[in-house]
């Protein structure tokens, strides 16, 4: 990456990592067709690059069976500078996206031959982890670097099996002070993304009208971190941080926590069903790995 002179590094230089949801299970049932969605997103990405000469964009696709990097604006060769035009990111991005979707579908076919499809969620934890690794690399690149943030454009519902991994990513983003914005285009609200945006200080929005997606993206999500201090952005309402109990999966506001494995129960039990510890007695030996069962509750 060419190093820009110091005076170009104003407060609003940003690195935007966009996590695009390409889950076919969601897009087949969505009211907005994928092609229209892409045209909104591409215009938005172009507008970000226009806002500042040294803004940077990275696009990671979140599929149903895999995640991959699609586009990195700092890597593209720009022959367009001679003509005075900006490099068009459309062709490169679209080609790579198409390759990715084809590969993902292949993996889906392989999966469904061996196991029946159990879940229709996309692998958000994978793309969040990759985005955070990339952002750490940017932090290491020197004292002058753009301010990074993550934008999750997601439509699929939450996969409860990814809860721990997503929470780990959220806490790591919070420590590195990287906000996670969420633009949720699915039907019900996503609890994971609401928590992510609340904990990291990002913006969560579920656009009311998907035809005008570009408007929502460019007015809310194109704002850089410095400008957010004096802009009125949608406030978070009603983030529910209550937990659900392991036995009935219902949300509780008062419960019992096992002091060994932190499982949540709504009623008093004699024995913890997750780690096998007997309550009220001194334990005789460390619980072996086989006792520590792992469960997937349906949400």
């Amino acid at each position, binding site marked *: 990456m060419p190093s820009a002179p110091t005076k170009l590094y104003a407060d609003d230089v940003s690195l935007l990592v966009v996590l695009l949801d390409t889950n076919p299970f969601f897009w087949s049932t969505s009211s907005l067709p994928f092609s229209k969605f892409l045209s909104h997103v591409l215009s938005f990405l172009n507008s970000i690059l226009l806002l500042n000469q040294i803004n940077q964009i990275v696009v990671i696709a979140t599929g149903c069976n895999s995640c991959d990097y699609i586009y990195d604006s700092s890597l593209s060769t720009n022959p367009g500078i001679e003509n005075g035009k900006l490099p068009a990111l459309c062709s490169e991005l679209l080609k790579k996206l198409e390759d990715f979707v084809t590969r993902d579908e292949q993996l889906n076919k392989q999966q469904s031959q061996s196991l029946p499809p159990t879940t229709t969620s996309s692998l958000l934890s*994978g793309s969040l*982890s990759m985005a955070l690794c990339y952002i750490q690399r940017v932090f290491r690149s020197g004292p002058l670097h753009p301010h990074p943030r993550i934008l999750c454009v997601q439509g699929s519902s939450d996969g409860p099996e990814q809860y721990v991994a997503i929470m780990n990513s959220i806490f790591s983003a919070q420590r590195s002070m990287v906000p996670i914005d969420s633009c949720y285009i699915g039907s019900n609200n996503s609890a994971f993304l609401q928590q992510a945006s609340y904990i990291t200080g990002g913006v969560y929005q579920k656009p009311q009208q998907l035809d005008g997606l570009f408007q929502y993206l460019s007015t809310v999500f194109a704002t850089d971190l410095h400008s957010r201090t004096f802009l009125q952005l949608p406030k978070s309402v009603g983030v529910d941080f209550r937990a659900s109990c392991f036995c009935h999966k219902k949300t509780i506001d008062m419960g019992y926590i096992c002091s060994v494995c932190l499982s949540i129960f709504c009623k008093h039990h004699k024995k913890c069903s997750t780690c096998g510890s007997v*309550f009220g007695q001194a334990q005789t030996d460390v619980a072996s790995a086989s006792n520590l069962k*792992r469960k997937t509750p349906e949400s």
Partner: protein
Amino acid sequence: MNNGNGRRLNGETEEDDDDEGSEGDLDAWERTYADERSWESLQEDESGLLRPVDNKTLYHAQYRRRIRSLSSQATTSRIQKGLIRYLYIVVDLSRAAAEMDYRPSRMAVVAKHVEAFIREFFDQNPLSQLGLVTIKDGIAHCLTDLGGSPESHVKALMGKLECSGESSLQNALDLVHGYLNQIPSYGHREVLILYSALSTCDPGDILETIQKCKKSKMRCSVIGLSAEIFICKHLCQETGGSYSVAMDESHFKELILEHAPPPPAIAEFAIANLIKMGFPQRAAESSIAICSCHKEAKVGGGYTCPRCKARVCELPTECRICGLTLISSPHLARSYHHLFPIVPFDEVSSSVLNDPHNRLPRSCFGCQQSLPNPGNKPSLRVACPKCKQHFCLDCDIYIHESLHNCPGCESFRHSKTPIATEE
């Protein structure tokens, strides 16, 4: 250095610092030239040009040694850890803490790193509580009670940094023992002593006190700043803690931050119990209530205790009215990575790297940095044993220290195993 020797022979004491434990006549800044000799680590290549000093592989080698020593204690990756900890930090403010072998003085360095440790401790153990005790003039004072808010501890510590007198290990242990006996039985009792002095001045038999601590199942660890002392070593051996002596400031920081993640739990030490906790909802933005911590009316943005409906300002906390522990589900989630740790990555061996039949990925899976194809140099890439993806050294460190997720395992559906979740 000649000047230093000359001054000493004259018997004059300048305002040079007492360099305990070193050659005796070199200042700390002089030691970096005389002892550490950084110029000797430069190497030249065939044409006589300087090769850049490769700090990255050194750092990574240190990191891997540490990971290996931590994981060698655990036979399986899921060893039980004491997640609900009640820790007392004992800071030695005796005369020895005014020594200036750590810049500007031992006391200032200790205070700075204790502040960083407190924040890291609450970050990694949100359900735990911490208290501070100081030793001054042979008497131990309790600086702050066991509590869960980092700000109050840090403020109290920074306000009281004066040192004098002798240090008394037994008085400190007696005081902490009295306090830790009152905590619930499911909590793990721990003491971390930051000891600068070389002796202890006790009113009675310290060995009896050590036995008392051992019977109460308190795990005492000591970090020494001067030299190894037998009584500290004995204390740590008896109670199952760890004893280490810091060599310099960065080593001290490393040693103290090692105590932030929960230690492996000794099974008989804490009784498993079900703890009643509340998950309060955030109050509506326009509600007005008198908050129970500041005793004044506040508008919006607090939490309501589900049992007694009192308003609290922040979580995690204990409701002042009814005593219920109040937390939110992300606080529990912060501790999950201790329960489900990820496996350390393996170095990719040079036989695999040099094999021309293997198609090696050219960039790190996490950050897309290009991984150089090494010739004879040690390998600069690591691979996850589960998903077989290659990562660069920096991503390896970041993943294991901060992220606790392998991007490769998370990005492929077939390698996922179901895990316990709450939502």
